[in-house]
Each structure stands twice: as structure tokens, then as C-alpha cells.
């Protein structure tokens, strides 16, 4: 039966059909839905792990124990999981193991545009790349087969457009071959130097075997495909870019589509290039396939005609290859930009307003609250990576201890568990007067509401052990731990001010569940009494999307307002009321 499946849903379906038994992931756009869909299958033990390194190690442990397993993450998550990734290439697996990484060309929801194909080459782990939902499903299944055949984890690389596009895919029944027997084998699984030296020899041999596989068998399996049409133009491509090329060039070009992007074939590419007059390598982000082509001595056109930045499109390919420009209409309108903002009722708003009043330097982190960088709040000085706020603040305060009482770190509950806790241990152990604010909204927000170790629920929404943030901070040696409600502006500001004055490390937990959670009850929308409103715009200082000025007076959009009452506290004229 064919179904219209989201790419991520098709991946989940493929893993399920292949008999996957264990899944461990950390959420990250655009990979999140894979594991959310997996959680709907009772046959698979699934979980949200505290971070990607843990997820990868859990999947590894399960694969060694004999269960087909996977972990999924966004591109930057693979940086966190890089340690187990590289060495699992040496140990290999018992049952199949798939590591899914979703890149984000164009940075729809990411802090960089890294090309994870380099990880495949770096770790010498085979990498498959589907171009639509049908291939997401098929390649996921194939990944398990190849993992077991070549005794290696297999990487499955997605990009935003593949993960978040729906297209038709043929679904079938699950085949579960049960738990594969585990046989103790320290030479294989214990990577001390003596064993690892022998394993490295095997890894290099495996790559040669896999390259041979890519030349011929992968073509027979439909993993790598060659399609000859007009031979004036040849296109070497993979993933989503194949669909752009097909739409732009149709039968006016021939295609070598590489479903396996590591290792890359040599003869297959050379033969294709010999058949075609002019060959383009079409690939988003880095010149990964192009570099390989040039290394094996074939003449291709790549990044000199295209770009290392952002996403490709059929329009771009038509423009460069066919010299055809798109025709379009424009209206004579000056259009203000509309970037994302903190939602109406967002508990982070009150916290950032307090920080603005205190005029502190803010070491920021990854999550919804990164939007605190935007005007009118504008309260973020640095954002680097998951967990980087806490250790970054420690570094700032080591460098400039005089200003430690004017600097804070902000980090969400899930991000704190992910990798903020290690920074806090550093603060306690190496003793800076750093003030860390944990924005505890009781959920992993930005990726669309996933449970985490602090929420008291597991991936299926069932009760689970909850980490107490207060006790955790105390246990690592933080003596001053405060909890505030960020809807209460005065309490929030006073508490942070006090924490900054202590000349000791402190943690402030700003606690209030995400306003979008279904379990959160809202008060009725607030209204502005136009007679009382003096048009002072004090309520506009918090950047709430529900408040705007109309005919010189503030007005509140009833479809957005959740009655949080933060603006009410700013109005000196009692003009905002229920």
C-alpha cells in the first residue's frame, strides 16, 4: 500500500519494517519526528536520551547485544556523538546499527551549515543518502542489511527537504528476526591499542570491499543509479539535489545518482563521465563528490559554477546549466521582515525583561530562548552550541572576574541536561562567581515538545524518574540555588540581582511550563481599556506578538493572548485588565 509519508516518517517505517528493536535519540530539527514516529510502534524500545553521545552509545550497546538499533540526530548532534562514532567503525556491530544524521542546508533551524558527509569519510563509515520518502523507507532497511553484512554501523544522511517533505512510499509488513546471539569477543569489542591496531587493518579492507560493492552491486540494488538520456549534459548528484536536477533538466541530461555517498565509486563515475559531453556535480554545501571526482582524474564542473552556501533549487540549476532566468512579478510594497519571535505567553519573556532591566551580559544557548536575542529584548551576547552558555560564562568570568556580577548564562532545562551540567561542574570545581539561569519550561520546546529527563515523563508520555534540577545543582557543589516564576517580574529581577551580589556561584531556576503545552491552563485574553491607556508604550517593551498599537492606543489580539499578565505589570495606568 502506498502512503503519503513525511521523509522522517518513512525512515521510521523503514526501520520498523526492518525489525529494529531499540531506538535512542536526542531531538533536533530536522531529525526529531523520526524517533517520535518510532515511539508509536510498541515493538521498538524507544527513548529520548540526554544527548546524542549517549544515544549513539545506547544504540551501539543494543547492536552488540544483538538487537537492530538506531539513533537519530541533527547535524550538530553528530559532533556530540563523534567519539562513539569513530571507534564504533573499528569495533563493528553484531546486529545492525544505523546512525541517522539530518543536515540543514539553508539553516532553517540551525546554528551552522556543516556538511556531515565529511564524518562518513572521517570515521570510515558507509553513508547512504535518500532523495524522497520512498528511498527513505528503502534505504533505512538497506542500511541494516549493509550494517550486518559489512560489520559496521551505517550512516543515513538526510537534509531538511527530505526529512520534511511528504511523498508517496510503499509500506509493507515488519520482519523481526529476534535477538542475534551475543558472543564474547574482546578482540572485536575492546578497543585497547593492541586490538584497535588490528581492527584498523580490517576497516581499511572493509572500505575497499564497500567501494567494490558501490561499483556494481549497489547499481543492481538501485542504491546507485545510472540513467542515460541526452548525453550532452551529465549530472552526478545525490539526495534532494537529484530531484531538483530532474525537474530542471528532465530528459535533456543523463544522471548518475549516488545513493551511497561514502564510499564513492571510481569506475562507475569514470564510465559515466566518458559517456557524457559536459558533466556537472550537483551537491549542496561542500564540494564533497566534486573533490573525489577531481582526485580520480575526471573533468567535472562543480562549485566554480554553483555555491557552497544554502540550498540548491531547480531554478538555480536552470540558471547555471541552461542559462534560463525565472520570470516573476513583484508588487510595489515595502515588506518588513517577519522573523520568528517568542510566542505570546512565553515564560522566557519575563526572564529576559528582568535581564534587560539589570543590563547584564548574557551567555546564551540553543533553544526557543535564543529568540531573546531579537529586539526589543535583545538580551543575548553569545550563542555557540548546546551547553556552551554555562562553560562560556565560566571562561568569561575567569578572564574578567571584576564583571562576574554583571554576567549570566541562560540555558533551557533540556539543554542543561544535554551538556550544561558539565559546565556547571566546572564552575563549582574551578570556582568562579558565575550565575547560571536555567529556563525550566518543563519540556524540550524548540523541537516541538519532547519529554526530557527533568519532565517526569518518558517518550511515550508514561511516568518516569525526574531529575530534580535543584538537587542536581546542589550535588555538584552550588550552594545558592533559587527558584522563581518568570511571570512575576519583580520577584524574578530581585532574585537575579541578589544572586549576582553574592560573590559566589549561583543558579536561578526560572520555572514556568511552556505556554503551548496542552496541559497548561490559560487565563482569558487581556484587554486594553482605551480610556485609561496613555499611549506610553511601556507594554511594548517586552515584544509580545499579541500587543500592537492601533490608532495611537495599545491593543491586544484576543486570538494570541494567553492572559499571562506580564504586560499588566508594566502598565502604570491599570489600562490592561481581564
Amino acid at each position, binding site marked *: 500500500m502506498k502512503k503519503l509519508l513525511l521523509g522522517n516518517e518513512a525512515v521510521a517505517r523503514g526501520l520498523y519494517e526492518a525489525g529494529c528493536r531499540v531506538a535512542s535519540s536526542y531531538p533536533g530539527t*530536522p531529525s526529531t519526528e523520526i524517533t517520535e514516529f518510532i515511539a508509536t510502534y510498541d515493538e521498538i524500545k524507544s527513548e529520548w536520551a540526554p544527548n546524542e553521545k549517549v544515544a549513539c552509545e545506547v544504540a551501539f550497546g543494543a547492536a552488540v547485544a544483538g538487537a537492530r538499533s538506531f539513533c537519530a540526530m541533527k547535524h550538530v548532534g553528530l559532533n556530540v556523538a563523534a567519539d562513539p562514532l569513530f571507534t564504533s567503525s573499528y569495533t563493528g556491530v553484531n546486529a545492525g546499527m544505523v546512525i541517522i544524521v539530518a543536515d540543514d542546508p539553508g539553516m532553517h533551524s540551525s546554528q551552522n551549515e556543516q556538511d556531515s558527509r565529511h564524518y562518513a569519510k572521517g570515521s570510515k563509515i558507509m553513508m547512504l543518502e535518500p532523495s524522497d520518502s520512498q528511498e527513505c523507507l528503502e534505504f533505512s532497511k538497506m542500511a541494516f542489511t549493509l550494517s550486518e553484512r559489512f560489520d559496521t554501523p551505517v550512516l543515513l544522511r538526510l537534509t531538511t527537504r527530505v526529512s520534511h517533505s511528504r511523498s508517496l512510499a510503499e509500506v509493507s509488513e515488519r520482519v523481526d528476526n529476534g535477538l542475534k546471539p551475543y558472543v564474547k569477543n574482546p578482540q572485536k569489542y575492546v578497543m585497547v591499542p593492541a586490538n584497535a591496531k588490528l581492527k584498523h587493518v580490517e576497516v581499511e579492507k572493509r572500505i575497499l570491499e564497500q567501494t567494490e560493492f558501490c561499483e556494481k552491486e549497489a547499481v543492481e540494488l538501485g542504491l546507485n543509479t545510472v540513467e542515460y538520456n541526452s548525453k550532452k549534459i551529465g549530472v552526478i548528484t545525490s539526495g534532494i539535489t537529484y530531484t531538483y536536477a530532474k525537474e530542471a533538466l528532465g530528459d535533456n541530461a543523463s544522471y548518475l545518482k549516488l545513493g551511497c555517498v561514502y564510499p564513492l565509486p571510481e569506475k562507475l563515475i569514470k564510465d559515466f563521465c566518458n559517456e557524457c559531453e559536459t558533466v556537472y556535480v550537483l551537491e549542496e554545501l561542500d564540494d564533497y563528490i566534486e573533490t573525489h571526482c577531481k582526485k580520480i582524474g575526471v573533468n567535472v564542473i562543480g562549485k566554480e559554477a554553483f555555491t557552497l552556501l544554502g540550498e540548491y533549487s531547480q531554478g538555480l540549476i536552470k540558471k547555471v546549466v541552461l542559462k534560463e532566468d525565472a520570470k516573476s512579478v513583484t508588487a*510595489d510594497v515595502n515588506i518588513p521582515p517577519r522573523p520568528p*519571535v517568542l510566542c505570546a505567553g512565553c515564560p522566557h519573556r519575563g526572564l529576559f525583561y528582568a535581564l534587560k532591566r539589570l543590563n547584564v551580559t548574557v551567555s546564551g544557548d540553543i533553544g526557543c530562548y535564543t529568540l531573546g536575542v531579537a529586539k526589543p529584548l535583545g538580551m543575548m551576547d553569545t550563542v555557540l552550541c548546546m551547553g556552551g552558555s554555562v562553560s562560556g560564562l565560566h571562561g568569561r568570568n575567569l578572564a574578567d572576574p571584576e564583571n562576574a556580577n554583571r554576567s549570566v548564562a541562560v540555558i533551557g532545562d533540556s539543554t542543561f541536561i544535554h551538556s550544561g551540567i558539565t559546565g556547571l561542574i566546572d564552575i563549582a570545581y574551578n570556582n568562579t562567581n558565575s550565575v547560571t539561569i536555567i529556563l525550566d519550561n518543563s519540556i524540550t520546546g524548540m523541537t516541538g515538545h519532547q519529554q526530557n529527563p527533568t519532565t517526569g515523563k518518558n517518550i511515550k508520555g508514561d511516568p518516569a524518574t525526574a531529575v530534580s534540577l535543584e538537587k542536581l545543582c546542589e550535588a555538584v557543589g552550588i550552594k545558592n540555588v533559587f527558584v522563581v516564576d518568570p511571570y512575576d517580574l519583580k520577584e524574578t529581577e530581585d532574585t537575579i540581582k541578589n544572586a549576582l551580589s553574592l560573590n559566589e556561584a549561583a543558579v536561578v531556576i526560572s520555572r514556568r511550563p511552556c505556554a503551548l503545552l496542552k496541559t497548561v491552563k490559560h487565563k482569558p485574553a487581556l484587554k486594553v481599556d482605551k480610556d485609561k491607556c496613555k499611549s506610553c508604550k511601556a507594554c511594548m517593551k517586552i515584544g509580545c506578538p499579541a500587543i500592537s498599537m492601533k490608532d495611537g492606543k495599545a491593543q491586544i489580539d484576543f486570538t494570541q493572548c494567553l492572559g499571562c499578565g506580564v504586560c499588566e505589570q508594566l502598565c502604570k495606568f491599570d489600562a490592561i485588565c481581564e
Partner: protein
Amino acid sequence: MNKSIMIVGVGGQGTLLSSRILGTALLLKGYDVKVSEVHGMSQRGGSVVTYVKYGDKVHSPVVGIGEADIILAFEQLEAARWLNHLKIGGKIVANTQKIDPMSVVIGDAEYPEGVIESIKNAGVEIYTLDALVKAVEAGNPKSANVVLIGAMAKTTDIEKDIWLDALKQNVPEKFLDVNLKAFELGYNS
């Protein structure tokens, strides 16, 4: 011959549900369909866009500049923002609702006057309606997305029964009545 539809709006307006209903309807009609959404950061009140493409065989899931046959705009400014994606001769179905972007809220920019007129002046066929008023009439302001799908449905060659089937497949049972009413109000507008 493949066709392309874009659904544009502001994060939180329910464009994703509309694209699912549309995708289902096209599938029921027997087309090959691709729907491309962007999740994550864009949900938070930012400008959002969903691409829906259909025909005998669809390759690329995205719609580029000058490629859309129809733009369904949930908000005026968003219709203008994505106008360059419209094919010459394409049409727009637009909600007249205005939502101020943060730059306007804080006084850094102005919400432009006469957006719809400017689009008309560019020679584009545009049909407008106040979906929010109709959604309130249907019983829930959140059903504005279904009002808009109803309004667009009328401009396509897909039978009404198919649309209603698609609606039923994508809306939870308890909200079905409101949404059926919202669809009718859009369809008959």
C-alpha cells in the same frame, strides 16, 4: 503537466493542517503529490511557507521563483512577500487579516498600506476574503485555515466530495463539525 501551490502565512496560523488537507485531496484525486514543510524555528510567529506539488510525476518538492500556479496566503503581507514565487498568469487567494511583524510592533517598520491593491496593480488575479470573521462564524477562530482551504478548493478542478473526504481524514472527530462549517463558509464565499 505538474502544478504548484504555495501556502504562506505566519507561524501558528495552522498552515500545516491546510497543506495536509490539500495533499490528501490531491492524492484522492489520483495525482502524484509532494508536500514540503519547514518545522522548528519557523513555527514561532515567523513567516512560514509550505509547498504542495502535484501531477503525473513530481520530482522536486519545493517551489521556486516564478513557479507557483496558486498562492494561498493566510495574511496580506505574506501574500506580497512570496509574490515573486507566482507564475506569470498565476492566481492568489488571500486572507485580508493583518498580523503585525515584531518590527512593526516595536515601531522599527510600518505595516504597508494598500497591499492587496499593489498586488492587483502588478496585474495579478487575486481573490480576497476575511477568513477570521468566517472562522468565528463557524464557531472557532482557529478554523480560519479551513475557511481558506474552502475558498481555494472552489478555484480548483477537484470535486467537493473529495475535499470533504480529505478534511475528515485530517481533522480530529471532535473538531469536525466546526471545520465542516468553516470549509463551507470558505467554499461559498
